[in-house]
């Protein structure tokens, strides 16, 4: 059985479920969203990632119908949402605070939306039971929200927003209130449920690890704009800007000047030092300022100068952060620039090769780094 890759955004025939068309949102003088255009496809798990105040929550609240669009259009399944109130949208939201009704039991909370539709009683009961099973809450059906744990409340909120089988589920920092261990377990549970129900999920988060784990695509936002939209792997391996590279994971940034050299560039970064060599799809004019972005785990740390590496540079170990599985070495180059390099701790601590103040060589290949304009 051949598995096709899920990538409707690469298919020109695919019809998007959600379309933002030149959407702008202003609160008084403050522009929360600026001229944003973006498509989201059915069955996607789409993350909006960014620091607080970047507009991600506003974007989501516009989808739910709690905020009006100042300019532009939002279409869901081809229909303009401009004058559709929240209660008439086939969109449900899971709130950051969960917003469980404290006066209703778990069962009644989940049934709340179904009852508003005026469905027959038997149908409601069947659907609620299905949701309780899906979220493993059957035992807690009669409890009130304050009588269950945080993780269980999170699942009630999820069950309640999924009960009406919405076309689109919005999740506002759904795991923010959970501790780290529980959060990781719940991420997989969320993915599992998303797959089972086939619902389109749009999730708002400021936790890059969470976005990377769960999403089909991640949109990195800053100051009301989407900076980059791509799959987690692309975002990590090929960020389109220093902002994205820096926001997702750890990165070394080296400023320099680009000069064309064959199918790559030579990047002059310090006087009297050999330039770095990097291949990239981005094009630069000769003499243009650029930034070399390189992930610490792609920098090898060696005792001797390697013979065949595209880039090699000597430095001194200033600091070592021991993280168990890996260690991060902070290496100072001749011009004072600090470079982080990671090495897996395959040997026991006592037999570690490098220690403080050692002089070492750092090296990376010509495809390891990304060259960015800004």
């Amino acid at each position, binding site marked *: 059985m051949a598995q096709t890759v899920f990538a409707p955004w690469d298919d020109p025939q695919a019809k998007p479920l959600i379309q933002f068309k030149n959407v702008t949102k202003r609160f008084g003088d403050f522009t929360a969203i600026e001229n944003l255009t973006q498509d989201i496809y059915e069955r996607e798990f789409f993350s909006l990632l960014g620091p607080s105040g970047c507009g991600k929550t506003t974007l989501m609240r516009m989808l739910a*119908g*709690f905020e009006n669009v100042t300019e532009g259009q939002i279409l869901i399944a081809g229909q303009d949402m401009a004058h559709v109130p929240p209660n008439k949208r086939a969109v*449900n*939201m899971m709130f*950051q*605070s969960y*917003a469980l009704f404290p006066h209703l039991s778990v069962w009644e909370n989940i049934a*709340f939306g179904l009852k508003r539709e005026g469905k027959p009683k038997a149908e409601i009961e069947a659907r609620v039971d299905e949701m309780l099973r899906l979220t493993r809450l059957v035992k807690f059906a009669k409890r009130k929200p304050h009588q269950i744990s945080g993780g269980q409340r999170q699942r009630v909120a999820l069950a309640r*927003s999924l009960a009406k089988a919405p076309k689109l589920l919005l999740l506002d920092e759904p795991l923010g209130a959970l501790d780290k261990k529980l959060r990781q377990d719940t991420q997989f549970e969320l993915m599992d449920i998303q797959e089972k129900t086939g619902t389109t999920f749009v999730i708002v988060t400021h936790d890059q690890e969470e976005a990377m784990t769960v999403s089909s695509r991640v949109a990195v936002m800053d100051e009301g704009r989407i900076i980059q939209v791509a799959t987690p792997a692309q975002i990590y391996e090929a960020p389109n800007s220093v902002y994205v590279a820096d926001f997702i994971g750890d990165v070394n940034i080296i400023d320099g000047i680009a000069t064309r050299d064959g199918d790559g560039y030579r990047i002059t970064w310090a006087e009297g030092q050999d330039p770095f060599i990097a291949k990239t799809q981005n094009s630069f004019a000769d003499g243009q300022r650029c930034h070399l972005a390189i992930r610490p785990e792609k920098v090898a740390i060696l005792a001797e100068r390697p013979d065949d590496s595209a880039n090699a540079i000597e430095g001194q170990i200033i600091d070592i952060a021991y993280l168990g599985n890996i260690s991060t070495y902070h290496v100072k180059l001749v011009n004072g620039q600090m470079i982080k390099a990671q090495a897996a701790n395959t040997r026991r601590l006592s037999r570690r090769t490098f220690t403080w103040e050692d002089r070492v060589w750092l090296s990376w290949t010509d495809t390891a780094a990304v060259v960015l304009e800004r």
Partner: protein
Amino acid sequence: MRRFILIAVPYLWLMALFLVPFLIVLKISLSDIALSIPPYTPQLDLTEGWSGIKAFLSQLDFENFTFLTQDPLYWRAYVSSLQIALISTVLTLLVGYPIAYAMAQAPDEWRATLLLLVILPFWTSFLIRVYSWIGILSNEGFLNQFLLWTGIISTPLTILNTNTAVYIGIVYTYLPFMILPIYSALEKMDGSLLEAAEDLGCSRLSAFWLVTVPLSKAGIVAGCFLVFIPALGEFVIPSLLGGSDTLMIGKVLWEEFFSNRDWPVASAVAVILLLILVVPIVLFQRNEQKQRELDQ
């Protein structure tokens, strides 16, 4: 030792000036009126020892209570007190809820001021606030002047010295007691609950009925008791704004005591009023208790 003093002082004070007076009322309500000072019999004479106590106990009876059940005046006073307290509680709720709701919805920078405006009348004299309505409600008062001027009525309405004036007085003076608990219940409410209700298909109005009202229930109940309980025993409002046919038990008790000087009957009236009040007071305490447990 210090702990003992700390407990004993307020304890004994309340015993002597709250509990004991109460027992005296109970005892006198079982006694008979007499032309003496004090004007009731029997008197407990402890100098005679055990036989004195026995003689004293044998003379106590429920005659005053029998009298209360037989004279329709008292029955009607109790019933009409309950009725007036109930109607004015409902009216206060109807007036107070929208105000509390609007306050809870108000912009943050307005809240403190609005709260102050609600509390301020509570600190001003109760008597003066009741008094201020006499000039408004009388036949040539401001309300009638205004209504005549606008042409809504052609002859002055008689409001002062009727039950209507009593309702207005109770609503006016007890309004802060209704607003404050409802406001504090509504203010605690998480705004995202309403958004969640709308998101799940409620209209604004049904979200109000299904979420806001149930969640402010504790406040509503507390507010209603805080109005109902004092309104039932109210004396100042019916005697200043009510008419001669406004029967309220507080007024009856006052007149029985000061005008008729029938202390045993006044005491019996008080005992029964208290028995009636026990029910709402216990319910009120339960409500508060439940609320405290939920808050923890």
